């Protein structure tokens, strides 16, 4: 079980554990804004999607009836839209204005490359005991998939959502049948997002034995040297070879931050699982 040790922890040979920065403060806030608004959207969207299930009406009544639930859904949608636009601005800033290297291409980029394809097959061979475990760089293929699934999902769900919200306006550019289609697209894509995040993302990122019970790096921003080297071997080795490892050294997360992150993280995971269970009961009943 890999957990980040609190400040002052030491490695086996007595040296203080080193921590490396993986995510900036802005990136951690972005993830928090993302999962908060996503949980809000899921909690207010699922009762509408499964409005005839036994829990939907009770839930809608609990938050103040159908008027409130639609209002809250739109509220979280606006929050998520703003977060998405801020992210686009950050990418534009880093990649285009600052001309930072490796944003759009290279081993540390989110953009998929040939190595990701090889990693998918290599990883699967390792699952079946047919080969060695591949070494991953800054972002593994399933992390890139998570990122692009959310990226694509926000465009698709966001566009179809706004098309319904402002249907008479969108009707100026869209054919009539598209107004029917946007609901299908919105609810199916959202269902995929809910099922994917609350089962696959949770397990792949947080609950798998390597990270169990939660990968704290998205909350604290730093990870221990051992974890860095183990999980993102290529990035570690590349930085070590260039002698740039020291640039990434951060401070050990304080105990309060660890505890706070655990409370927030486990609450989010708990809500997500509850929504997953409700979704599955509604889907299969």
């Amino acid at each position, binding site marked *: 079980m890999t957990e980040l040790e609190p400040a002052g922890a030491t490695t086996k040979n007595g040296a203080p554990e080193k921590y490396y920065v993986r995510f900036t403060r802005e990136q951690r806030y972005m993830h928090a804004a993302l999962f908060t608004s996503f949980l809000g959207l899921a909690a207010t969207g699922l009762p*509408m999607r499964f409005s005839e299930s036994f829990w939907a009406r009770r839930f809608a009544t609990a938050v103040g*009836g*159908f*008027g409130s639930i639609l209002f809250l859904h739109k509220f979280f949608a606006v929050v998520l839209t703003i977060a998405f636009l801020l992210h686009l601005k950050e990418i534009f800033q880093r990649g285009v204005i600052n001309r930072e290297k490796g944003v759009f291409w290279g081993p540390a980029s989110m953009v998929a490359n040939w190595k990701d394809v090889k990693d998918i097959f290599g990883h699967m061979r390792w699952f079946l005991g047919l080969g060695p475990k591949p070494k991953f760089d800054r972002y593994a293929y399933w992390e890139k998939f998570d990122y692009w699934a959310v990226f694509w999902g926000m465009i698709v769900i966001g566009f179809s959502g706004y098309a319904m919200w402002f249907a008479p306006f969108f009707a100026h550019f869209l054919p009539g049948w598209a107004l029917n289609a946007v609901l299908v697209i919105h609810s199916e894509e959202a*269902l995929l997002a809910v099922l994917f995040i609350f089962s*696959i993302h949770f397990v*792949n990122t947080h609950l798998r*034995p390597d990270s169990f019970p939660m990968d704290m790096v998205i909350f604290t921003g730093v990870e221990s040297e051992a974890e860095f080297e183990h999980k993102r071997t290529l990035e570690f080795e590349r930085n070590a070879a260039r002698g740039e490892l020291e640039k990434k050294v951060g401070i050990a997360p304080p105990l309060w931050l660890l505890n706070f992150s655990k409370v927030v993280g486990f609450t989010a995971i708990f809500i997500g699982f509850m929504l997953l269970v409700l979704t599955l009961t509604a889907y299969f009943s």
Partner: protein
Amino acid sequence: MNQAAVKTVDSDQWSVVRKTGIRGQGSGINARIALVVLSLAFLAVAPRWLGAQDCLTCHGDSSMTDANGHSIFVDQTKFSSSIHGSLECSNCHADIKGYPHPDKIAPVDCKTCHADQADQLKSSVHADTREHPCTSCHGNAHEIFPKADARSAVYPLNVPKTCGQCHGTNGMAGKHGLASVYPNYIDSIHGFALSKEGLLVAANCQSCHGSHKILRHTDPASPTYKSNIPQTCGNCHAQINADYQAGVHGQAIARGDLKAPVCSDCHTAHAILQPTESAFRMQSTPICGNCHKDKFSTYRDTFHSQLGSLGGYVETARCWDCHQAHDVRPASDPSSPINPANLIATCGRCHAGANASFVQYQPHANARDRKLNPGLYFVRLFMNLLLASVLTFFMLHTILWLIRSRLSQLKNRADNGGKHD
């Protein structure tokens, strides 16, 4: 009865008491005095026609009972102000010719005077006069008031309670396998108007069912027979009836097609709700769906339905918001709100800014019908394939990963106590 008093009664007097079956219940003394006076009066003037005052000598005593213990008291004040107050007792109790009269007297036959009503009753559901004597609705025989009098059991505001004695939860209705309708009625918009506002014009039981000639709803002559219901409700709701008659449902009924809905099919017979209330808006769409199954099923796929079935204060479109409630017409009819020429106005009632392209939206699109809605069909197919393939791939991927990861973690731990796989 007071036992001590009985023992001290003079045996002659007591025999009179026993013979006539008259006993003082609370006060033996009063009864005895009354009997003595009565006997003397009787001897002095007999035989002659008995007047009400003569009868009230005994029957005016509120403690008097017959041999079975039933009260034989007649409230003189109420009787004299009742609709029959000017009559002599013997007008109705015709078999009593003198005093003392026999223990058992013939039941009063109201039809002697009320022949029309008796005739109507004979063909009605209440024909059995032993089960349903006149008094079961009109109340105490000696306290019957005109129906416009608030004291009357058949005064409009009292009718539901009167009928409810039998047609309520604990009444005869249950015994005879009839539905208990009183609670439904009293909580309905009619019941509220009557019980809360005291509206005399509010529909009560007899407004729809009639009074003496109540017939089963299966009887074509009944005002509650299916094809007669629009006219029955139309007695008050004239404009709505006119609208209904102009619509497809009214015309179908007029043609004799009894499958078409009448007022009570949507509004129910007794538990009628205010149609703008959310409770009614919630329950009514499935009612249309009872017949229009395909339209209901496609409606349920839409956002109108999804949001609308969440309850509370519901303002998303229900069937009649677009189709009209009473004057329902096919889309081909130029005056129908769903005629293509009227769609912008109809949709625009909720959707400000509705335009020609906007109203191309299909409120009953079927994403499973490739011929009818090809675009929607392929969008749904694509989304379903996307969902299935992504979830299947990652489900397998995650499960295999979990197993492999755990196995190698355990192996490493056994080897060197390491944390990682």
